[in-house]
């Protein structure tokens, strides 16, 4: 058999194996029990071993079922991905020392996600995914402290940067429309419990 590598399958298979191995490692904490009286670790054990098997099969078959290369990511894409992940963790670590706003809630994580996603979005290949995820992080960061409207404004502005054809006027119009719509649906009709305005 000739080696024709299906990169998509090989990477998928390796990914399945990796996830399963992490799962098996974490599962060491749980009591397996016996087949008759299954402990909390029994089902995870079965599931992860099946996953290892499947991952191996996908990888091996992938070596011969190609060629199907991955998308062509540039060196810049790869660099910004690595930098973004690093930046995310560093900012998270720093943020947890910045006082209770960041350390006692998920805001520290949020700041890390935001920083990481913004760095990732620097390269053209990740621009959309980076900015869309960043916009949701902005929403989550602003919502409880700065209120519903501030969070929505932040989300919409960051999200609209993902599409280059947006104009300032278009975004402004959309902003007003969506703020009114969301207020009507979520606050007036559904009455969700959330602060509308900044809390100090």
């Amino acid at each position, binding site marked *: 058999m000739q080696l024709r590598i299906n990169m998509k399958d090989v990477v*998928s298979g390796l990914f399945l194996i990796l996830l399963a191995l992490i799962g098996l490692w974490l599962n060491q904490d749980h009591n397996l029990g016996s087949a008759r009286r299954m402990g909390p670790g029994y089902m*995870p054990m079965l599931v992860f071993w099946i996953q290892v098997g499947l991952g191996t*099969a996908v990888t091996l078959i992938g070596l011969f079922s190609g060629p199907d290369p*991955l998308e062509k990511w540039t060196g810049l894409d790869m660099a910004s991905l690595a930098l973004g992940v690093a930046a995310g963790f560093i900012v998270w670590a720093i943020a947890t020392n910045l006082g209770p706003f960041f350390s006692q809630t998920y805001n520290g994580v949020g700041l890390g*996600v935001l920083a990481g996603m913004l760095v990732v979005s620097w390269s053209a290949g990740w621009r959309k995914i980076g900015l*869309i995820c960043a916009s949701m992080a902005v929403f989550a960061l602003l919502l409880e402290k700065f209120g519903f409207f501030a969070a929505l404004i932040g*989300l919409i502005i960051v999200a*609209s940067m993902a599409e280059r054809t947006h104009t300032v006027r278009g975004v402004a119009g959309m902003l007003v429309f969506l703020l009114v719509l969301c207020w009507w649906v979520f606050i007036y009709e559904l009455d969700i419990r959330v602060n509308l305005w900044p809390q100090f």
Partner: protein
Amino acid sequence: MELLIDNLAHGFSVALSLKNLSFALLGALIGTAIGVLPGIGPVATISLLLPITFGQEATTAIIMLAGIYYGAQYGGSTTAILLNLPGEVSSVVTTLEGYKMARNGRAGAALATAALGSFFAGSVATILVAASGPLLTQIALSFGPADYFSLMLLGLVIACVLAQGSILKAIGMVVVGVALGLVGTDVQTGQQRFTFGIPELSDGLGFAAIAMGMFGIAEIILNLERPEAREVLKTEVGKLWLTKEEFKRATPSVLRGTLLGSALGILPGGGASLAAFGAYMMERKMSKGRHLFGQGAIEGVAGPEAANNAAAQTSFIPLLTLGIPSNAVMALMVGALIIQGIQPGPRMVEAQPDLFWGLIASMWIGNVMLLVINLPMIGMWVKLLQVPYKYLYPAILVFCSIGVYSINNNVFDVYTTILFAVFGYMCSKLKMEPAPLLIGFVLGPMMEEHLRRAMLLSRGDWIVFVERPISATMLGIAAFALALMLLPNMRKGKDAAMAG
């Protein structure tokens, strides 16, 4: 028979209450809208609206969500016929003949065929759901834990066999879904599993967060990466009616499509898109007008459109009678029911007669509404198509974010959604189907429970799964289906059928 009529009468009395009626209409309207719009499908929409349904009664919530699913089947055909662009996956094949008809100046006829065919199919399928529901429930009540486990396994296997692309990868995604379902407190011992000490995870990963991340947000990112190719409307819709000859040609196709669609809808992993593909293939081979295919044959619109709507309705059968979701939309319905405190399963028909019969009655009412929504009001939907995607995606994003936050009033869920958006994006770049994961996630915890119960009853003997006839049959079918699909010839056939 009399009992059925009594039950249906009860169902109509539930469905015709002002509140349920207006939510059925709302569901149908939303469904049509997202059906018309390419780039947002029923899975994303229903997961987006899940949090909104918490405050409502279960019946009302399910009636609305169901309306979205079958409404999307109606709406999807409009875009397919007028723009040669499928509004939904299930209307991909409608573009083939429908758009040709539109170019021949018969757009009105194609739209009318699609709507009337869907209506007929929907009505028949609704009766089928009503008739088979109590029957299947009776059978299901004799199931033991081992039978349930095997049945769910069969469901998962068939869902994978019928998924697009590599079967092994689809099974891999199911297993990942089952693994994600393990996160949280173990029901029997109370031990925390895979929670990393995060209190929010002790109830398990949020269903809505996974669904929205993988189907809603990841879809947005992928759509943004694809350049928008939506043409401005050029075709005239014309008169929304069929000539006598067209009517004669379409009728047998609608009948065949309804039959095939109803059957494929019940199959796990089936559902609307598979039914439409199947019906198209059948019409191309069997219909009297098969020599006209490629030039705008009305049979090529009538068959698939009837089939996809029939399947959308009958795919509720396994959910309502056995508690087993047959596709991603039904997995979302399970999520909605569980959040409402209702465990889907064979006891639901008796325990929740309002829900069961009300839903069935509302399906028929919804189909009537959709006929009105789609035929006379077609112009409004055509206008909706002119809203560019760049104004649409921030709205979807905003709704997802607020929705997922409002489930627990916790930003943790928003971050989970981001994580699954990235995961969903990665999966699509690796050609891994996200739908099997969702089904695995829903079925996983139920499977674990039945497995443990079955093994306890059998004193740890695995033979119980082949000893019980029902269980053995299920496992046999599952093994057979898997073996079939591993044969190279069958796989090619399936891929060809999926590619239309």
